[in-house]
């Protein structure tokens, strides 16, 4: 294998591993703030219990996200020096703002949020919780701005192959940015909704009947049921935006070879790039035309429009984009079905008497958000190939001239470490749930109801 492919696999592996954890922490930060505010408002112990359990998952996820994120900032230099040389004038400030406005904020206040509960007043602890959630979201904002700019660059001019910023407003609010922001933040919310519902379901299955578990079960199911239709709508809007700016990506997502009307929505097919056709197609007639153009004879762009004179394809590899897209949508549909069925059961029977089968289904879907998120990112990122920055820089132009065996050796090390850590992470989250459902107290501290009992509680401390 050559350096280019190995470097792509390596960066792909790193960023895939990395995104799993921010996807959890972005939304979980806000969920923790919600638990904490509920506790502040009601004084009900179950909210503090929920907070204390999920803050552990948050801390673990956060550490995983931090260390894998550092890896990527170095890989820009070690593997993709051409990226910063060509578009550093744009990417640089965006990354710098991420570090300055997000990384320090979340890192410092994380320390206070995690370990400061006994050392600072409650209002400061709540503020720290807010700032951590805010920091993770800011971090997502800046990095998604940069990523969106790589898909739909705007506000720049090229001089001797180097991009110079001309309009920062246009760079930040580039055409795909609002859609990508919405889609990713909702994805984070859904990932956390299903994680919370899944782990709570597992604890209910283990016979844990604490109020906090029932509350988090309800919380997860309802959050999922509310967010998934919004996500389907946002995803559709994002798709239409992609159709406008990156039609070749949509053509690959639909597996559509010829630009034409009445294009079916393919449920199954094996795209064959050699023959430039699909095998074993199963589709809904006019489906793709209806979704993308809102009429049955709407014209959908085809892959054959994106081939150079000499026959080199200028479109992304079809099969991976086609399949990732289907995995993402399929997972989303499963989420819709389960969360709505779950919400219905909650209404009829309550969290305590959910059918066992349904609890099993939720536990099984605990990490389904990861699957959908990864599949979605594969769709959009592989869908941008062969470009690194659409129309500006190809992936090939940016790669470092590092010997292939060297890249291979680091790739193997990273893969081993990442595989082991994912295994340890999922195992430890499950173990924490098991330990909590065995009734081990999360706290020995007496919490005063905020504002009321603080004076009375001091002698007990």
């Amino acid at each position, binding site marked *: 294998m050559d350096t280019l492919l190995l470097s792509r696999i390596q960066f792909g592996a790193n960023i895939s591993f990395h995104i799993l954890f921010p996807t959890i922490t972005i939304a979980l930060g806000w969920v923790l703030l919600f638990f904490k505010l509920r506790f502040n408002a009601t004084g009900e112990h179950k909210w503090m219990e929920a907070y204390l359990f999920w803050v552990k998952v948050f801390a673990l996820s*956060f550490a995983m996200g931090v260390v894998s994120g550092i890896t990527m900032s170095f890989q820009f*230099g070690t593997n993709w020096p051409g990226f910063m*040389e060509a578009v550093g004038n744009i990417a640089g400030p965006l990354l710098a703002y991420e570090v300055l406005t997000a*990384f*320090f904020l979340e890192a*410092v206040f994380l320390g206070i949020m995690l370990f400061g*509960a006994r050392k600072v007043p409650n209002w400061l602890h709540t503020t720290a919780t807010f700032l951590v959630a805010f920091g993770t979201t800011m971090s997502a904002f800046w990095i998604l701005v940069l990523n969106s700019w790589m898909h739909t660059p705007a506000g720049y001019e090229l001089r001797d192959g180097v991009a*110079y910023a001309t309009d920062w407003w246009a760079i930040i609010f580039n055409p795909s940015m609002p859609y990508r922001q919405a889609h990713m933040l909702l994805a984070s919310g859904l990932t956390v909704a299903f994680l919370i519902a899944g782990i709570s379901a597992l604890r209910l299955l283990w016979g844990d009947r604490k109020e906090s578990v029932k509350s988090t079960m309800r919380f997860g199911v309802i959050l999922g049921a509310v967010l998934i239709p919004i996500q389907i709508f946002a995803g559709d809007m994002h798709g239409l935006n992609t159709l406008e700016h990156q039609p070749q990506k949509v053509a690959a997502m639909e597996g559509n070879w010829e630009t034409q009307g009445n294009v079916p929505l393919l449920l199954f097919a094996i795209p064959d790039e050699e023959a430039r056709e699909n095998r074993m197609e199963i589709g809904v007639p006019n489906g793709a035309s209806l979704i993308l153009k809102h009429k049955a004879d709407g014209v959908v762009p085809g892959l054959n429009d994106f081939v150079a004179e000499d026959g080199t394809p200028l479109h992304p590899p079809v099969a991976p984009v086609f399949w990732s897209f289907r995995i993402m949508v399929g997972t989303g549909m499963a989420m819709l079905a389960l969360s709505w069925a779950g919400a219905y059961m909650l209404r009829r029977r309550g969290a305590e008497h959910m059918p066992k089968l349904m609890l099993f289904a939720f536990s099984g879907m605990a990490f389904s958000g990861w699957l959908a998120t990864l599949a979605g990112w594969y769709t959009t990122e592989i869908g941008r190939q062969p470009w690194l920055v659409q129309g500006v820089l190809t992936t090939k132009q940016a790669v470092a001239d590092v010997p292939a065996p060297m890249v291979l050796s680091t790739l193997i090390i990273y893969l081993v470490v990442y595989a082991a*850590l994912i295994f340890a992470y999922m195992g*430890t989250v499950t173990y924490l749930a098991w330990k909590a459902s065995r009734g081990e107290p999360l706290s020995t501290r007496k919490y005063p109801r905020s504002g009321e009992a603080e004076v009375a509680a001091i002698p007990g401390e």
Partner: protein
Amino acid sequence: MDLFGDPNVWLPFTFAALMGVSILIYVVLDGFDLGVGLLMPLSEDDEKDRLVASIGPFWDANETWLVLAIGLLLVAFPVAHGVILTALYLPVAVMLVGLILRGVSFEFRAKAPITQKPFWNAAFFTGSLMASMSQGFMLGMYVMGLTWTLPHVIFAMLTAVFLTVGYSCIGAAWLIAKTDGRLQEKAVGWTKGGIWGLLLGIAAISLATPYVSPRIFDKWFGFPELLYLAPLPILSAGLLAFLWWKLKRLPMEGDRFAWTPFAAIMGLFTLSFGGMAYSFYPYVVPEKLTIYEAASAPESLIIILAGTVFVLPAILAYTALSYVIFRGKATELRYD
């Protein structure tokens, strides 16, 4: 924009200074984190939790200075970022794996089943060791001009050992300030035991730097440059002597002066760093690429600087707040 003269001159200089400060802060702050990690095997099982507790609230923010430093290199000197990191491909990978292991072990050792704790303690140490050694190695290679020849690699291996011992020294000094009782007494011993790393590390780099480059040689031993540089070795020697003298007397009644070894080593790191910055300026890739040649476009640098001017004081302020909140002796890490 021409307020301070030519932006093609003052902007690269400002960013080089910011990057230098970030690296220095990183080396001091994560230096003590990594150092504490290195001391894990020397401590008893019941002391390990206190070692971790002494750095628990800080390590993540400390590591962020590395992200800022590498980020500034990336955004302000993109060409240099590529040249330096591709030249240091393998040690960078070792450092990253080390930082990954170190960072996650913090969490796993406290959250995974208790039977796994020795494993994650070992991973915590191994990660700290890999990160320290590779940073020392990169330092040596950088001094040697980033060329991979056998003598250079041998030199870099020596600096790897010296920096690692140096980190363990500042880590132990941190523990003197953050612990008490028997562990504090031990920490005094560990600090003493690490001084040779500081001494040899500073000596090795001071001897090698002028030897590698005639330009730096002239900068050091020309006249009157010799006079400008003279305070560095004199102050360093003074600090080393002070450190040795103080460590013989610590711990003292009422825990007085427990913070002085850490402050002294911080001073040593700063002086050494100042010396290196003086020597290598104006080059960012030694003897090949100056900060002025490698800098990004001024219109991009100015927009980063505008944000930095406002945000950096805030960062420093809330970082200080966190050190104030977690001042005093390290206590058990609790979420409630």
